[in-house]
């Protein structure tokens, strides 16, 4: 399957702001089953400094610096992506076994389990969520089965409700209200898995916009999407699970970045001197250009 993806972000400030600096996190990282070509990132106005960096988690950060005041910012990211469905990763270790395995991997890099085992800024440790998840993660269950069961429970108990939360809502609030958007679902699932000692990361990316004939459109396709990657041992590695759609992330999902939570991979943030901007809708389009 080959997709053409485009993502536009526009922001307008009531008064031009000084000393504007931005981090964009829109360029896809390499990921098994994904092959990218034709990447374009157009930015208006032209920044004085523009540089790509990798990290600090599994992502590419584009840094922008402006010398002149900025009244409006328009960002357009587009690329072509060939995606191979990954299929089922096969048998995975039991939760109890995986726990100790994760502690023993002598690796601190961005794709090792160690960075994704602990509470992070948004995905803070929480007993309520932890105990809710722990029921589904007994030590003798295979870790992938446990994670899928958790996604299923999330999908069953929670209502997907755009606008119910925003990027500042704490996951525990969405958990208590049992509704939210993909970001909340992902955070709740990550918090539940980490509570049980299972490495879990926040995946940010896109979904195909128009479903194959005869299938329903996936939820979350109109904006950036979020799901969870779970470390399932050295063999299976990182496996993407989408609790919003209750499925494995495969074929229809295009991964851009992976971090501990949303804060690590937010598509844009920055600093400036002045009043906060009005953020206009970020249009996302994921079109199939070759269904082969």
């Amino acid at each position, binding site marked *: 399957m080959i997709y053409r993806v485009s993502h536009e972000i526009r922001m307008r400030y009531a008064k031009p702001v000084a*000393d504007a600096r931005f981090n964009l996190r829109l360029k896809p990282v390499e990921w098994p089953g994904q092959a990218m070509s034709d990447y374009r990132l157009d930015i208006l106005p032209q920044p004085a400094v523009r540089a790509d960096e990798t990290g600090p*988690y599994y992502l590419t950060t584009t840094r922008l*610096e402006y010398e002149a005041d900025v009244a409006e910012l328009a960002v357009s990211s587009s690329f072509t992506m060939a995606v191979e469905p990954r299929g089922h990763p096969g048998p995975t270790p039991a939760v109890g076994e995986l726990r100790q395995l994760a*502690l023993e991997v002598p690796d601190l890099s961005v794709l090792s389990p160690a*960075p994704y085992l602990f509470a992070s800024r948004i995905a803070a440790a929480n007993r309520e969520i932890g105990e809710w998840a722990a029921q589904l993660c007994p030590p003798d269950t295979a870790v992938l089965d446990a994670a899928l069961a958790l996604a299923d429970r999330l999908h069953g108990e929670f209502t997907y409700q755009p606008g119910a939360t925003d990027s500042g809502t704490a996951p525990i609030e969405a958990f208590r209200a049992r509704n939210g958007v993909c970001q909340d679902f992902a955070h709740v699932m990550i918090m539940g898995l980490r509570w049980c000692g299972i490495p879990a990361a926040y995946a940010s990316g896109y979904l195909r916009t128009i479903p194959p004939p005869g299938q329903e459109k996936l939820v979350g396709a109109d904006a950036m999407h979020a799901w969870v990657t779970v470390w399932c041992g050295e063999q299976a590695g990182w496996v993407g699970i989408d609790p919003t759609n209750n499925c494995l992330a495969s074929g229809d999902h295009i991964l851009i970045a992976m971090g501990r939570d949303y804060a690590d991979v*937010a598509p844009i943030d920055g600093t*400036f001197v002045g009043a906060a901007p009005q*953020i206009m809708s970020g249009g996302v389009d994921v079109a199939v250009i070759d269904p082969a």
Partner: protein
Amino acid sequence: MADPAADLFGPDPASDPLAHYSPAEPQADVFRAAQGPIADAWRNLAAGLALQSQGDLAGLQHYIDRQVEDLGLAFRVAGDEEERPWPLNPMPLVISAAEWSGIEAGLAQRAELLERVIADIYGPQDLIRGGHLPAVVVSGSPHFARRMVGLEPPGGRHLNVCSFDLARGPDGEWRVLTDRVRLPVGIGYALENRLALMRSTGGLAGRLGARSHASFFEALRRGLAANCQRADPRLALLTPGRFNQSYPEQAYLARYMGLALVEGRDLAVRDGRLFVRTIAGLKRIDGLWRWINARDIDPLHFDARSRIGVPNLISACEQGLVLANWPGVGVVETRAMPAFLPRLARELLGEPLALPNVATWWCGGEAERKRVLDNFDKLVVSSAFKQQVAGLEDGRTRVGASMSPDERAAIMAGIARRPMDYTAQEIVHLSTTPALADGHFEARGFTLRAFLVRDGDGRWVAMPGGFARISKSGELRTSLMGLGDHSVDVWVIDPEPPESHAEAALPATAIRREEGLLPAQAADNLYWIGRYGERLNQTARAIRALVSHSAGVMARAEGVTATTRLANLLRRWNAAPPASIKWQPIRLAATALDERAQPGSVRQLTGMTHDLALLLRDRLTRDTWRAINRPFPSFDAEDADELVDACDLIVERQAAVARLASDGMSHTAGWRFLDLGMALERASLALQAVRELVPGKASGEDLSALLDLFDCLGLYRSRYLAIPTIAPVLDMVLLDPLQPRGFAYQLAVIDRHLAALPPLRDDGLPETAHLLARNLVASVEAQAAQEIVPATLDGWLGQLAGLSDAISRSYFLQQEGQDSKPPTSFLA
């Protein structure tokens, strides 16, 4: 060599205040365990204190407290609004030079080890790949800054300053309890402890041969400067601001070491270089000693929500900025790390730890976990990364043996689910030291906080002694001082000091007369402390005038208008609410003096002055600081005499503050801004007072009230020998250039200061503010008193407001323009 102190106090056992000191476990007491000359030093010390206090040891604490207060030595208990005086026990702790040299060597080795561990974590990560340090022990730390991996600090120094908490066991063996490398909280207090003791014990420390701290701070300064890119580097201390627990300490250190005290908003990064915004434009900073956690230091590279950091600071680091300590060093502070340090010492240094740390087991390892579970009752269990974890929700450590069955079950379940979150340690017992309590010596358990810095050559140098903490409760694991804790100065004593005191030869200091740079923020604060100070002074004068004039109302009918006009003036200044129009003068006066809810009340203005003074602690002289901090006078709100007395006191005190500032501060740009603020406020208030008191049919009483506000009633009477009339009064208070409270005089002062400030333009033309000031001066010089009408006053008031705006645009917020806000972060 004879002990010189013995000659001073004599060996008379009857005069030995420690003779009756009897700790419960003598073998575990530092004094009882001391022998020979060190035991003599202890006795001489106690005898010296007794002599100093003329036998009243209980009074000594009181005396020390006064010294502490005079030094402005304060701290905040976390979550507290107010600062508290720093608690210092008068009785120091004595350590022999021989014992200290062992500690010093052990800590230097440990600092070196931590440096190597940090360098590996942020560099090749060989320790992790080789299995010597689990990756999880690194990633579990909230202080691990992944962004810093691969970024090497100038000179390879991640650490410039370290502190350690140590415990002395009952057997006399020292152990490291905690490594503190993020913020060396207490380093300034240690310095001030010594200063307070020196002041109150009359040179006792010197006579007993206690080592001094001076060269330690010089070493730190040179260590910071060593790897800067410029030969004569500019160094600054980055503070989170005055609400930080140790802000007073930071301000003190900055002043003591001659570092610019800056907040994040004072700084800007341009093209990979760090600058401070000063009144003379951007000035480069070469080295920064940060007192801000890495997480908050750069909103672009770390937490985007931080309001106290500097956007892009990390790119300045990439370009060679010296940042002490390097962001991310806190990764070695976790409780799990000491479990690995003994092994890492052998791996990295090829030698065992000279000074052991408390035996520690990290439950993430299978064998270690088993050992902990088998010995649970003999251990202390704690959160490995100081986070809230199941069973240890408050982050405190717990003794295995003293847990309830429920607590125990919760921790056991937590360890089964997430073993990496837990560590266990052996139980540490503390030695005791004699401390003064209510006039006699009592044994108290103590921990020692030691400080190490790198000198210019990169060698580790220890502050001789540091300070000790004593507590009744015995819980001494908190970061700074808890309520009821005391600090104790630590004296490292050479019983046989070397013949010549071999101080390291210091390089000659370059002579300078400028105070260094003046950050725009500090100039802004100085300007406003001048303005608020003058406003509270004038408000107190107006209140006083109101009370005096209203007292005569019954006798003289024309007093009524003066009273009304003064009341209007106080309302105009927001010292009294609009509703006060129906109030009795005395009620209005009491409100204007003491009502916190009234933004222009004397009480409120005093509070604002005090807040600004806290921010300017490094710039105000000690006497000025003390005068500003005098308590607000108390008075009976219904007693006119007491109200007048309170106003008198405030007026006198404000005069003292102004004079102490003008006499004590070097007359460089900082002082000019303070004086500028005062003059501008005085000019503005003068116009406003005339505006309220004169228009319409001003009576002699009204004009007398006006002259009273300007403190020139006597002068008028001696000059004119007549009832006040309008034109001569206006000439005196507005146009006479020699009347020091008058309007014209203030304009001359403003003109002089603006002319002397550093030029910002490069075309040689005067600054806008200066032009506006010249304009006003000319207009006032050309004005005849007889022709002053309300519109004249309003015109001048408008010009003054424009002048104040021009000053802040030019000098305070040059980057942002006038109505800017602090940098805001957002999430899309």
